[in-house]
């Protein structure tokens, strides 16, 4: 293939981004694909990226979305109008086990001690982990259920990003932490974190951490990542994507990447993949429903409480007060100067409206040139022709800089063939 575009529905640095960038390297190094641009569309557990992917890429045979278990969680949590049924699964690639750990200074020395305290008074144990509805909270929920505590009673404290939750765990701000093995491993080696259990079914070779199962908690859990193609692609495109990904997972470059990031090779493609995703979806729905069961209980500890009302009230009160003070000062001021001309503002408004209408239809160059020219006119530019030439030159220049040098996709529009 000449070009395969990857969308990572998360910010640079996270697991999906790392997956996309590892694929990028494996595909380019092994010359399977010539160029592999990665596009980050972060937000809402990947569902913003999913919606964009389905909306903008329908029928494109040269693009893949990185997805996984956490996106399933996001779809359920945020009641996403689009789901993984709207995309074409190509392959599951990797898996990662979760670890439950406590800081070195913690009074808990084994999973038994920890779970005894949890069972005695569930709310007194705070679990720190990643975003609400993500894999970390899912594991906490599965563990609670397995030991006979209703999952919604878990005092789960969501943090954004690995750094935030890790620092809260290391600093003993929370009782225990749940995270992927890779995120905890360095701290476990250094002795700053004590791993109580790992979510794998069997003990991992070379890792002295007991599984949940061998400690009497019947849970095995794994966070997996996969790639999806957009809906509406042709059978031949689909086959070509599957072939490319299949070739990639067998390259030494990809194996090397999997080893470096300490992922598990979980390659799975074909009809089994669709079945796997369906089973996982049922599982995620089940566990999230249980986590959510007491969600609307009157407890104000986790619900957002009166804060939004206070803020909106503040806007109204201070808005009215500020409005009054403005009216009053306008009266006493009585500058009485000539009413300002609205012409320039109107000209700019026309430029902005055209810019917005043209950007994704005509392309960036045309839209930016129009915005520039109208704004210049609004400030009485006296050389419409010169400004027009300048506007086009500036637009083409910034387009080339962003799209070609920095590889940030801007709409090329009608000029796509020449730029």
């Amino acid at each position, binding site marked *: 293939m000449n070009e395969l575009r990857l969308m990572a529905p998360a910010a640079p640095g996270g697991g999906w981004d790392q997956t996309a960038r590892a694929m990028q390297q494996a595909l380019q190094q092994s010359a399977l694909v010539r160029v592999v641009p990665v596009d980050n569309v972060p937000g809402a557990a990947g569902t913003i990226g999913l919606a964009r992917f389905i909306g903008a890429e329908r029928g494109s045979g040269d693009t893949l979305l990185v997805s996984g278990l956490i996106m399933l969680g996001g779809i359920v949590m945020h009641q996403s109008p689009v789901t993984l049924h709207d995309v074409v699964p190509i392959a599951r690639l990797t898996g990662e086990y979760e670890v439950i750990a406590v800081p070195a200074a913690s009074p808990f020395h084994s999973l038994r001690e920890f779970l005894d305290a949890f069972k005695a008074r569930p709310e007194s144990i705070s679990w720190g982990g990643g975003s609400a509805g993500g894999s970390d909270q899912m594991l906490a929920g599965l563990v609670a259920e397995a030991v006979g505590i209703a999952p919604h009673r878990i005092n789960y404290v969501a943090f954004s990003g690995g750094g935030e939750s890790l620092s809260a765990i290391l*600093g003993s701000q929370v009782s225990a932490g749940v995270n992927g093995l890779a995120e905890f491993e360095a701290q476990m080696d250094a002795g700053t974190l004590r791993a109580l259990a790992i979510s794998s079914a069997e003990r991992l070779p070379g890792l002295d951490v007991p599984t949940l199962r061998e400690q009497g908690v019947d849970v095995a859990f794994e966070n997996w990542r996969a790639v999806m193609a957009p809906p509406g692609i042709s059978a031949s495109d689909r086959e070509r994507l599957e072939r490319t990904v299949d070739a990639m997972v067998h390259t030494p470059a990809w194996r090397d990447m999997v080893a470096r990031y*300490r992922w598990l090779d979980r390659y799975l493609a074909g009809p089994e993949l669709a079945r796997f995703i369906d089973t996982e979806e049922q599982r995620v729905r089940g566990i999230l429903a249980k986590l959510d069961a007491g969600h609307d209980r009157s407890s104000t500890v986790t619900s957002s409480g009166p804060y939004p009302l206070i803020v909106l009230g503040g806007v109204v009160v201070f808005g009215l007060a500020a409005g009054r003070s403005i009216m009053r000062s306008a009266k006493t001021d009585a500058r009485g100067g000539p009413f300002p001309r609205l012409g320039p503002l109107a000209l700019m408004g026309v430029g902005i409206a055209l810019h917005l209408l043209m*950007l994704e239809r005509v392309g960036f160059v045309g839209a930016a040139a129009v915005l520039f020219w109208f704004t210049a006119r609004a400030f009485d530019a006296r050389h419409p022709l010169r400004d027009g030439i300048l506007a086009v030159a500036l637009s083409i220049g910034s387009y080339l800089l962003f799209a070609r040098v920095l590889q940030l996709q801007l709409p090329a529009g009608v000029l796509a063939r020449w730029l």
Partner: protein
Amino acid sequence: MGETLAALRVGFASALTPVHLAWALAGVTLGTAVGVLPGIGPALTVALLLPVTFTLDPTSAFIMFGGIYYGAMYGGSTTSILLNTPGETASIATAIDGYVMARQGRAAAALTTAAVGSFVAGTLATIALTFFSPPLASLALRFGPAEYFALAILAFATVSTLLGGSLLRGLFSLFLGLALGLVGIDQLTGDARFSFGIPQLLDGIDVLILVIGLFAVGETMYQAWRHGQDDTSDVPPQKLTGMSRDDWRRSWKPWLRGTAIGFPLGVLPCGGSVIPTFLSYTIEKRLSEAPDRFGHGAIEGVAGPEAANNAAAAGVLVPLLTLGLPSSATAAVMLAAFQQYGLQPGPLLFASRPDLVWTLVASLYIGNVMLLVLNLPLVGLWARVMLVPRPLLFGGILVLASLGAYSLNRSMLDLVLLFLVGIVGCAMRMYDIPLVPAVLGLVLGPLAELQFRRELAISEGDLTVFVTRPICVGLLLVAALVLMAPWLLRRWKPEVVEAPS
């Protein structure tokens, strides 16, 4: 201490080899360029470069990443000062007085104090990083949600210096920002709030959309509206010479204070440079002999925040290198890069790869010098931007603002929001409603709410935690001091002014 110096000497020996110097130069040049462009930050740049650097040895790659990271902090101030368009949250505070200075014909002085201040802060902070990393990192771990909440309250107290003439209008602006901050997913529960079923709103409103909309677009619209009224608002001829003796006298203390504020706050993973830069701005205004000058082109208002933002950037590296904790987007990407090279960033990194860590630290010193040498000659060139005729300048600003906003998420909704915010910003200018409180409301409101509720969840609803944890209480007391400072200073003013400088 001796051991550290010896290790650093070895690091310098490695960093000063021609190959490593070349990578450092490439990094700082690229970083400066990336910092100047709005909408693209150091995190994305490092991520984009990962495949290119994979064939390099890890030391060269990290020297370049370090250069990009520091360089972006230098470059970020440029568009803030010249075009009122901050490309990163770190340079929002710089725009307040920096842009006014540029319109007064003092763009070169503002850019110089930003560059030299960045150098001073970057170097001092790198020294602190060299010698005090482990104790600082363990101190940072003592910060829990209660302390971060107190820090957010302290930052809210700084709003009091930014309210402008009318308290009511300032509070209105603040609450507008707080209300915008409600939009998006409630992080603790995962519920969507005020997103009106629009998926793009689930992630909240990006602070850069608000800032670029209010500052750049709003200002352009306001100027267009005034343009019909009077034509006297032209930019006076630029002094391209840089800082006067008086500018230097007024800048050096803000640089040092900015560093002292920025570095420790950078070590804390509390999200971005907004708090340190605005704290620095507030402290400079509070300590100034002429607080009225702030907002009207006070060089201290550029010098302090710029130093604070660079020192904070160095601080972010402390938890990354000593604990393996990424506390910013760039740090997260660098952490991933460590893994890609098969290195395990964490408490053992200093022990397992001292060569790499110390070469990286040494190259940060070198990169800082390179950045100063690179940026000072550019000042004169950049300042000439202000000589561009007004119609073309404002046309360029709008194109840049739109480009920056669109490339954040490539979302049309962001772009529509940008121009809507611009209209609001124009109206706020017409009616003398200050803009900055809205920005702080959007940044700090969600932070304060989240940390407050997080602490309550951990303490099972026990409110007394906020008055029993010593660091938390200390920060809340400082917040009270900041609020009462005008009153206190009025009582003590005579001594303050006569203190030998």
